């Protein structure tokens, strides 16, 4: 029942995001009929065209923002609506209230990350181009692991802020400020510390800059670090909620 509650709370966000991200992917691949190869760069391979549009374009920013927003909700929001008392009166601990919400948000984010796996290879074939499914799956894996950090950031902010739009704006600012910090400071010298780079291989050795395909094994150590950061944020949200006076 708690899972169903979490699903009901987040389904509009998830379905709207899925519709827009799916439409964007479909539209971008279909545009290859007219726009590929690009006039300015006629030698770029089709995999490069896809990488730039789907895995390193504004679609990436949309995915990050949606992932952060999927983490929103919970008891602080219910406090604003006046229903926190009812939820807290359920025969379940606060931890048990939080876990299904986190799990549903992660599952939803995973589903969104899987959209290009279905759309890109299939639609590419329909326009006479080829994009390897294995590549799409690997990129999806990178998106899922890094997306977990964004979900956990949203989860954390929604545990801290009571104001409905305060949590939202904090969530939206998080990836923007993070990008500014890793691109505009000394951290720029450590590309692996930039989650945006890890998402799509930018400036990292596992992306071949000629074919724009992933080569070699995925950066498991980095991904483990990213997963650990997500777990820490989830843990912080749980601690904050456990001590909160509603």
């Amino acid at each position, binding site marked *: 029942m708690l899972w169903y509650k979490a699903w009901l709370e987040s389904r*509009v966000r998830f379905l*709207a*995001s899925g519709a827009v991200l799916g439409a964007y992917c479909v*539209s971008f691949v279909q545009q290859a009929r*007219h726009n590929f190869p690009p006039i300015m760069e006629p030698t770029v391979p089709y995999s490069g065209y896809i990488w730039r549009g789907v895995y390193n374009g504004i679609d990436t920013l949309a995915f990050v923002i*949606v992932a952060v927003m999927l983490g929103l909700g919970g008891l602080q929001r219910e406090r604003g*609506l006046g229903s926190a008392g009812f939820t807290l009166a359920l025969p379940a601990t606060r931890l048990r209230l939080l876990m299904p919400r986190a799990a549903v948000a992660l599952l939803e984010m995973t589903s969104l990350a899987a959209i290009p796996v279905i759309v890109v290879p299939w639609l590419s074939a329909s326009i006479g181009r080829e994009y390897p499914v294995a590549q799409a799956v690997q990129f999806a894996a990178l998106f899922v692991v890094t997306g977990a950090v964004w979900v956990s950031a949203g989860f954390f902010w929604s545990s801290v802020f009571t104001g409905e739009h*305060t949590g*939202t704006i904090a969530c939206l600012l998080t990836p923007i400020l993070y990008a500014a910090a890793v691109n505009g400071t000394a951290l720029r010298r450590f590309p692996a510390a930039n989650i945006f780079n890890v998402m799509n291989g930018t400036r990292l050795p596992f992306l071949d800059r000629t074919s724009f395909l992933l080569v070699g094994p995925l950066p498991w150590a980095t991904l483990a670090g990213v997963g650990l950061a997500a777990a820490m944020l989830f843990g912080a949200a749980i601690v904050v909620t456990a001590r909160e006076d509603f």
Partner: protein
Amino acid sequence: MLVYKAWRESRVRFLLVLSALVAFSLGFLLEARVHFPPPQVPMLPYAAYVWSTFYAQQAPAAFSIVALVLGLGGLQRERAAGTAAFTLALPVSRVQLLIARAAVGVLELAVLAIVPAAIVPALSPALVHQSYPVTQCLHFASLFMSWGVVWFGTGFLWSILFTGDYTAAVASVLTPWAYIVVYANLSRGGRRFPSANPFAFMSGEIDFGGFARGLLTSPLPWLAMGVLGLVATALLVSAWRLTERQNF
């Protein structure tokens, strides 16, 4: 009093973004002090360096999202919080409530658009030993505001249409991407109607004259800006007409 109410409702959002923007601008200048020009592009003009950070890449998208979120709030949100009846019982019309909220939101947006113009040209000579023209900042602020008011109007409209707390926020955040999908299809991948591409318009990429130097050289596209202003007005009027008919 209504303006004060609108300010109270939106000030946390606005101040969070303002703080972030000021910190980002100062951080950029301190970074540029050490790392400008970048070793891989030693001949890069300072204007192009500023442009690539403040006005290109993800900056137009970030500003659009902020504009959309600043448009959120109002009576539907108050209905969810249970305070709509108190607000509606005030001796003012619904249009007065909306005008106050819209005016405060647009002013907040204008302040955010101008922040780089206040910081970068003023501090660049002292911190980076480079100069950047104020007029460029103001031109870019105008371009950002042209689409910014449209996004603000869109967020404003969504917040009146949707009752769900996060529904309006998500609809707002997804709007630019949904728009890009529609635009890309109608314009054959951006080949037609360049002014209708919000991100290219805001970053000045439609002005190819001084593009390589990151400077706007052509006059501002007043006609396109006027059309965008009309679109924003139409969105706000739609929001007003809907609010007039809503049953709280």
